[in-house]
């Protein structure tokens, strides 16, 4: 049984604001990968989805990841595929980039870089927040 076979409609017509909140680095733990899996599956439900990257979550989006040495799956290219799933609202917290010496140029996808107030506003608009 795979994920795809298990999707069922569950609330046709209802559109809620979902925020996926990513605060962890990739590879050191599985949260980043399994968060991405929820986002992809969730896309089939056609909700109003935003994905936020703050704290070490911004490391999920860095270019140049090469996992041959650790023998793990490099899932970073999948962030580029989000657009095809109509997941287009990706927000990155500017201070989290700054603290890590990163800029938008270091990231593998186009994102909206926001400040603390904008991020707090975004969080406060949501109906469902999934934390990873």
């Amino acid at each position, binding site marked *: *049984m*795979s*994920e*795809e*076979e*298990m*999707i*069922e409609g*569950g*609330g046709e017509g*209802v559109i*809620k604001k*979902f925020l996926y909140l990513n605060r962890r680095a990739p590879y050191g733990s*599985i*949260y980043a990968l*399994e968060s991405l*899996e*929820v986002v992809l*599956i*969730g896309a*089939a*439900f056609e*909700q109003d989805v935003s994905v936020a990257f703050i704290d070490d979550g911004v490391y999920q989006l860095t270019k140049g990841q090469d996992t041959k040495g650790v023998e793990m799956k490099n899932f970073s290219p999948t962030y580029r595929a989000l657009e095809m799933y109509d997941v287009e609202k990706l927000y990155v917290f500017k201070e989290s980039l700054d603290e890590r010496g990163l800029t938008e140029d270091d990231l593998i996808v186009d994102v909206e870089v926001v400040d603390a107030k904008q991020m707090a506003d975004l969080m406060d608009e949501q*109906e*469902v*927040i*999934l*934390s*990873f």
Partner: protein
Amino acid sequence: MKLGVQVNEGPYQHQASDSAYQFVKAAVEKGHEIFRVFFYHDGVNNGTRLATPPQDDRNVANRWSELAAKHDIDLVLCVAAAQRRGIADADEAKRNGKDADNIAPGFRISGLGQLIEAGIQCDRLVVFGD
């Protein structure tokens, strides 16, 4: 109020599953509806029937099974997370060529869509984890 709960960690290693259980129990006692408890990440490890914790400690998996039986609560283990970590029901075991299964009573295995559905259907979704 209709509530959904997500549990990201397994039993014992972290308190997340304990906190989620106490929260669900309190919500039921107050008359709220628990639409679903969704176990994701290591949370799927709550759904084993093979655990034998010490007599003087709580039995985390049993406690979930009992609560589900008593109040008809839907306990869902994420199929992808369960496959990674070795939690299987009879169907999954057969499908994957395994000679045994280990799912506990009251739990069922299903897809991540069940989590999204809980988000859509519930008035609130509460996440417990590490």
